[in-house]
């Protein structure tokens, strides 16, 4: 049974064209790009080409692109570098809904590094309050780190305004842009952030490669020290095939932004509307106004997310859940809690994240099977709405 894969915010399929471009560099062209000989040099040139492709997607210069292993590394590097370059500043600002790649670093810095952090909240629709950001900035604020779009709800933050507010006060800005590449256009010539992190495997490149934009002139403190690779900013022999794959994936992604925002968006909308129409007591988490074109996060009251996922798995449908039971934790996702999604809904939340590899038939299958799954689970559940009655507890 072919999988109906709708978990692209977790990871994506490597595009066959990306794989084709990478393959020779596993076998015939395996030279070390740092070597002096022609054999390595040709690999080095290919890496330069990849850097140019990434820079073109970002709207920056190739020298501002730093290849690394993943989005997490990019986030960690940016945050630590920003703080290390301004030792006199001890405060940083982030949001309550960041990915753990940011949240856990900030918490660690608070606990062990003697830093103070402000966590910006979000409203019920998952939106930031820019006034809260304005008020939070202090003379000793070293960094504002706000994600570009949320991985769970798909809500896109007004990163242009966030960056402008911070820059007006001379504060460095980092954004985790892992979810937006290829989905939301941005241009670093006009978007005044200092650091921006992306990850290859979210954009149809392989796992284990990422890129960090570091604006020219921004003081930088390397996270990895060793050889002179990446101009001494990230030591370690390059993941050449990964980098080549990321370059190609960026090129394809740029050409596909229109498709993401028309075809993929339309499939997502059909899925969302269809589910809301077919299943009572369901709701979308996060604003529908400013959202990634591929993501919908829907909560089904009275049922539990893991149970839904497992039943969908029987039909080969892959999605993910913000329910507690899918993780080792016993509380539902920090993002849904930050939005104030009631527990009764939060436990039964499912995230569908589509890609250009999805088809209308995939959407049909989910629309066909999921409402039946929900009603089966609701039959088992002791909590249910009796006809005509208002929904039970929404604590």
């Amino acid at each position: 049974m072919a999988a109906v894969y709708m978990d692209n915010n977790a990871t994506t399929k490597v595009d066959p064209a990306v794989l084709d471009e990478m393959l020779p560099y596993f076998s015939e062209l395996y030279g070390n790009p740092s070597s002096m000989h022609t054999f390595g040099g040709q690999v080095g040139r290919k890496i330069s080409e990849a850097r140019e492709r990434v820079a073109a997607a970002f709207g920056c210069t190739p020298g501002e692109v730093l290849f690394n292993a993943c989005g997490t590394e990019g986030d960690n590097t940016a945050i630590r570098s920003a703080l290390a370059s301004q030792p006199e500043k001890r405060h940083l600002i982030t949001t309550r809904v960041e990915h753990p790649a940011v949240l856990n670093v900030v918490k660690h810095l608070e606990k062990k590094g003697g830093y103070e952090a402000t966590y910006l909240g979000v409203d019920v629709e998952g939106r930031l309050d820019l006034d809260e950001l304005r008020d939070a900035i202090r003379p000793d604020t070293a960094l504002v780190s706000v994600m570009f779009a949320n991985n769970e709800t798909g809500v896109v933050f007004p990163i242009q305004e966030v960056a402008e507010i911070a820059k007006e006060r001379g504060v460095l800005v980092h954004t985790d842009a892992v979810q937006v590449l290829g989905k939301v256009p941005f241009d670093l010539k006009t978007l005044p952030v200092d650091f921006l992190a992306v990850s290859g495997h979210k954009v149809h490149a392989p796992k284990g490669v990422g890129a960090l934009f570091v604006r020219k002139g921004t003081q930088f403190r390397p996270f990895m020290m060793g050889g002179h690779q990446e101009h001494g900013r990230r030591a370690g022999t390059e993941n050449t095939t990964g980098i080549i794959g990321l370059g190609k994936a960026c090129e394809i992604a740029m050409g596909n932004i229109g498709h993401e925002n028309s075809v993929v968006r339309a499939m997502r909308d059909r899925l969302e509307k269809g589910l809301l129409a077919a299943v009572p007591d369901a709701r979308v988490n996060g604003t529908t106004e400013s959202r990634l074109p591929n993501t919908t996060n829907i909560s089904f009251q009275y049922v539990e997310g893991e149970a839904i996922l497992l039943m969908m798995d029987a039909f080969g449908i892959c999605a993910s859940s913000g329910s507690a039971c899918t993780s080792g934790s016993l509380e539902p996702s920090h993002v849904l809690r930050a939005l104030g999604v009631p527990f009764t809904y939060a436990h039964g939340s499912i995230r569908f994240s589509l890609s250009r590899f999805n088809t209308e038939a995939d959407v049909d299958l989910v629309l066909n099977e999921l409402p039946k799954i929900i009603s089966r689970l609701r039959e088992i559940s002791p909590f249910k709405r009796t006809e005509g009655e208002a929904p039970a507890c929404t604590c």
Partner: protein
Amino acid sequence: MWEYTDKVREHFINPKNVGEIADANAVGEVGSLACGDALKLFLKVDENDRIVDAKFQTFGCASAIASSSALTEMIKGKTVDEALAVSNQDIAEFLGGLPKEKMHCSVMGKEALEAAVANLRGQPVAPHQEGEVVCECFGVTDETIRRAIAENNLSSVEEITDYTKAGGGCGKCLDKLADLLAEAKGQKKVLKPLEIVKPAGLTNLQRMKLVSKIIDEEISPSLQQDGGNIELVDVEGKRVLVQLRGACSSCKSSQLTLKQFVEKRLRDAVEPDLIVEEVR
């Protein structure tokens, strides 16, 4: 994704005995929507105390649904007392095992059964629900935790969380869980010695107060951990008169306790020339 056995999957996809029993004579309810899992168990018990029918409704993950289904299968046809002998371990074993993080689902099954039996017998609550709430996030009492430790031979705080959910939220109760674990394992809590600022040259009243504080807050709780106790009878000048109680009173080494522990500590904390004497 969790590694589930085929049996768990089977009982999740095709659960047995789902639904309500209209004329049930026992209903047990545990868990809540906020906690993320809940189970309502219906029993039909005949005049010979035999469970002739059992059904359930569960809100929760695959393990919760499978555990409920397994429980109803296991207890149908048993007498109430036989059913009560089914442990949460038995439920997990019936399913070929559960991931350790999901053991609380089997505990929920056991608790629902006890709640239903209490309901059948007209008792207000199942015994485990008594006690003081230790974990506020999940409303877990000290009694539930003590029981989970004893019945499942738990040896770490993480295991307590796996089996009861206590400690799985804000984490505020983790210290208390560690204390309960230490208590259950018969280990002594490490009592922090009180920090006493000794005034130079004590008056009788000051000495009395200080001795009494050290005995009440430090020495007595420590002896209690071994089933004994101590009581201050009087302080006459430098003589501290005490009575040993409980296990200490009959203990062969009580004189040792008195000199090596009580007197030594009081000398350190109050005055170096105090003498502790036992009055019988």
